[in-house]
């Protein structure tokens, strides 16, 4: 039995820095920590349909190795000896990697994904794979049930969805099963679940983190990112997983050194935002929380300018690009009829119909994407960040089809409408942080920056988190 005096709840909701301090001060060993969190992972993970595959047993061996080095003061950074888990589209050699989909339930790869190798080199302890929306939601889907493990349940209230497609990654961090998890985003798959589950989610710049060994949904849009308890923790993990990789054709060949201290003087930067995004675009019950969040952002003292997103049809464009690339990637799977084994009929139909996009459609979308990128370069010549609500609604119910009725929104547009799609089309880094609670469910703020400005984005989010305690709250699980 574990001998540590630290209680389970303290350990379950501790940050990476706090756990690292406990390990280095010998208040707990990595083996003890892995036992405690591993037990929670295996017991509570299935309660939220978050657990895809347990690797706790394998984690114990890695934890022993980490303890061996820690005892000899061989430090390998803040992640040494710390348990984590990954979305089940990231390959772990010799174990199932299901991509969240029944037709791939028996799939096993021979090689670890690049991010797994990088985290292993820091002696982080992998304890499992996490559930996800099948095939990361390619083709669209109609309900939370579009997953091999069943609907992702929100640790704040299991009647609600945990968000997708990185459903298990967000739920596992929120429920205190792991201090951090890896997820992926093609268009909203980190931002949405992180927001719904009240954790901090970092979507890095396209090309900063290698996707080698991860499922491809859209070559030109896929990114691997981090879900954790704070902006600071996201920076720590990003520093471990970022870096050039010849095995990923999309790799930017850049490294990332986490140094937000260089951006302490945020008053020299500028935030673009729109009052209407906070006052009128969100569903009415969420507006007081967003008004409060905006007041906190203003109190930081960064000059704030009214901004407006360039006017483009972001939704149809990104749908065409994702679905065209997904149709090519999964062409044999779709044409063979295996696609019919997916759980969600809308997704089955969406993938089949995606075969109808023409080369002209795709190239037109990619040409408009060039124009969007140019427009964003102009926009980011005037501001350093864009800040807006992460989501305008509370999560959908987990047991019902998504409500697809379009709610009444203002005619006037600010920044929020289309920001997730535009940010992904432009490969921009973004962070979402919890900024309030409505009916016991979290709401979040998103902060978007220029390409490769992760340190700045993290610095702004960290400043918000210094002034609030939303990120320290956790559900009673």
């Amino acid at each position: 039995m574990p001998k540590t005096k630290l209680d389970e709840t303290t350990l379950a909701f501790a940050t990476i820095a706090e756990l690292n301090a406990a390990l280095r001060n010998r208040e707990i060993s990595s083996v003890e920590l892995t036992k405690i969190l591993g037990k929670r992972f295996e017991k509570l993970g299935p309660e939220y349909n978050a657990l895809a595959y347990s690797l706790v047993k394998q984690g114990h061996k890695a934890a022993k190795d980490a303890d061996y080095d820690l005892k000899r003061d061989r430090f390998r950074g803040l992640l040494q000896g710390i348990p984590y888990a990954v979305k089940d589209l990231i390959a772990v050699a010799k174990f199932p990697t299901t991509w969240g989909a029944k037709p791939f339930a028996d799939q096993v790869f021979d090689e670890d994904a690049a991010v797994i190798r990088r985290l292993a080199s820091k002696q982080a302890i992998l304890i499992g794979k996490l559930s996800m929306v099948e095939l990361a939601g390619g083709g669209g889907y109609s309900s939370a049930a579009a997953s091999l493990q069943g609907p992702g349940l929100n640790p704040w209230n299991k009647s609600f969805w945990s968000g997708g497609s990185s459903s298990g990654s967000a739920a596992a961090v929120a429920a205190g099963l792991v201090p951090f998890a890896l997820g992926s985003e093609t268009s909203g798959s980190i931002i949405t679940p992180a927001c719904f589950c009240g954790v901090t989610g970092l979507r890095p710049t396209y090309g900063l983190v290698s996707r080698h060994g991860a499922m491809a949904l859209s070559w030109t849009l896929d990114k691997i990112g981090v879900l954790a308890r704070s902006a600071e923790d996201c920076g720590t993990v990003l520093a471990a997983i970022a870096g050039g990789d010849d095995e990923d054709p999309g790799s930017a060949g850049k490294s990332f050194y986490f140094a937000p201290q260089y951006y302490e003087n945020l008053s020299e930067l500028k935030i673009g935002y729109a009052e209407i995004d906070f006052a009128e675009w969100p569903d009415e019950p969420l507006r007081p929380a967003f008004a409060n969040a905006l007041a906190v952002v203003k109190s930081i003292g960064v000059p704030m300018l009214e901004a407006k997103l360039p006017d483009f049809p972001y939704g149809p464009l990104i749908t065409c690009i994702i679905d065209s690339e997904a149709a090519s990637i999964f062409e044999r799977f779709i044409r063979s009829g295996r696609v019919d084994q997916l759980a969600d009929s809308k997704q089955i139909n969406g993938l089949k119909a995606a075969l109808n996009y023409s080369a002209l459609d795709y190239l037109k979308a990619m040409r408009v994407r060039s124009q969007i990128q140019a427009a964003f370069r102009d926009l980011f010549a005037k501001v350093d960040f864009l800040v807006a609500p992460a989501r305008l609604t509370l999560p959908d119910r987990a047991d019902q089809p998504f409500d697809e009725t379009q709610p009444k929104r203002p005619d006037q547009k600010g920044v929020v409408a289309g920001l997730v799609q535009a940010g992904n089309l432009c490969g921009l880094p973004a962070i979402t942080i919890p900024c309030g609670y409505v009916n016991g469910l979290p709401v979040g703020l998103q902060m978007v920056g220029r390409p490769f400005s992760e340190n700045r984005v993290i610095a702004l989010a960290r400043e918000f988190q210094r002034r609030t305690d939303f990120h320290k709250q956790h559900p009673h699980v």
Partner: protein
Amino acid sequence: MTITRREWTALLGALPLLSQTPVQAPAPAAPPEGIEKATTDVREISQRLAEIEMPLNIEPAFRFVA
């Protein structure tokens, strides 16, 4: 319950085969109206893209960061 002409056609076309077909578990394939809706969505997006006026010199995005 209403049955569309398309469903009638499919049903009538399948009738002579019914007696020869061994009993199988129902296929989980999506209902036909679902694929029609998804195909219509694709067509609408294609049309929307076609309507966007584009200067001749704009090349597709070959880099995926702004």
